């Protein structure tokens, strides 16, 4: 369960901030009329996320930031699926952009950042034990330094 304050607000606020950044980019490139349309759509999506976050369901628990252990797994699997689909979409976009001789460096950035994040994730979340393996049945490799054999007579 989340220890954050106002857990249900986090997802809609994140949608609002990211969507507003997109709307600002649209405003700079295509004018503020188009940007206001994007902002309205962003606010509608944020409101939908807020409402869904209050529902008695797995999606509600995940979006409302109050998942239990199974729902954390559901969220992880959903994120993994979303990442695979995004990567596939980016791969198609990359190929099409290269074929059309367009500017493809944003795709380079996506694949480089994604690949690097994957490797960092393996390093961060994996278990690492570089110490040598001792003889079968021994626990030597698990000890940081050699110890005297235990003798109960010594107290």
């Amino acid at each position, binding site marked *: *369960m989340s220890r954050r304050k106002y857990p249900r607000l986090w997802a809609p606020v994140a949608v609002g901030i990211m969507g507003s950044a997109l709307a600002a980019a649209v405003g700079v490139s295509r004018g503020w009329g188009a940007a206001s349309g994007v902002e309205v759509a962003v606010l509608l999506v944020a409101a939908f996320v807020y409402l869904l976050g209050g529902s*008695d*369901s*797995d999606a509600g*628990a995940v979006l409302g930031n109050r*998942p*239990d*252990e*199974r*729902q954390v797994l559901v969220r992880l699997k959903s994120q993994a699926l979303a990442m695979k689909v995004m990567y596939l979409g980016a791969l198609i976009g990359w190929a099409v952009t290269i074929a059309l001789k367009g500017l493809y460096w944003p795709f380079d950035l996506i694949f480089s950042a994604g690949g690097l994040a994957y490797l960092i994730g393996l390093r961060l979340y994996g278990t690492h034990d570089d110490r040598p393996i001792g003889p079968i049945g021994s626990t030597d490799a698990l000890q940081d330094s050699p110890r005297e054999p235990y003798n109960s007579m010594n107290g």
Partner: protein
Amino acid sequence: MRNQVREGRVHRGLSQAELAEALGVSRQTVISIESGRYLPSLPLALRIGRFFGMPVERIFDPEEEVSE
């Protein structure tokens, strides 16, 4: 893996929502555990065992597979 969570809950006259609240999980998770679709973590399994006053291995039987 088959389990006795549903039987224990019914025996105590609890709803899935009440059991979920007692265990600190969602109602959907209790449903998933009862149907055998989700194997709880060791801490949650121990909480379930403590709640029903039974050893974990009596609640969760690794020998019996749930046929879906």
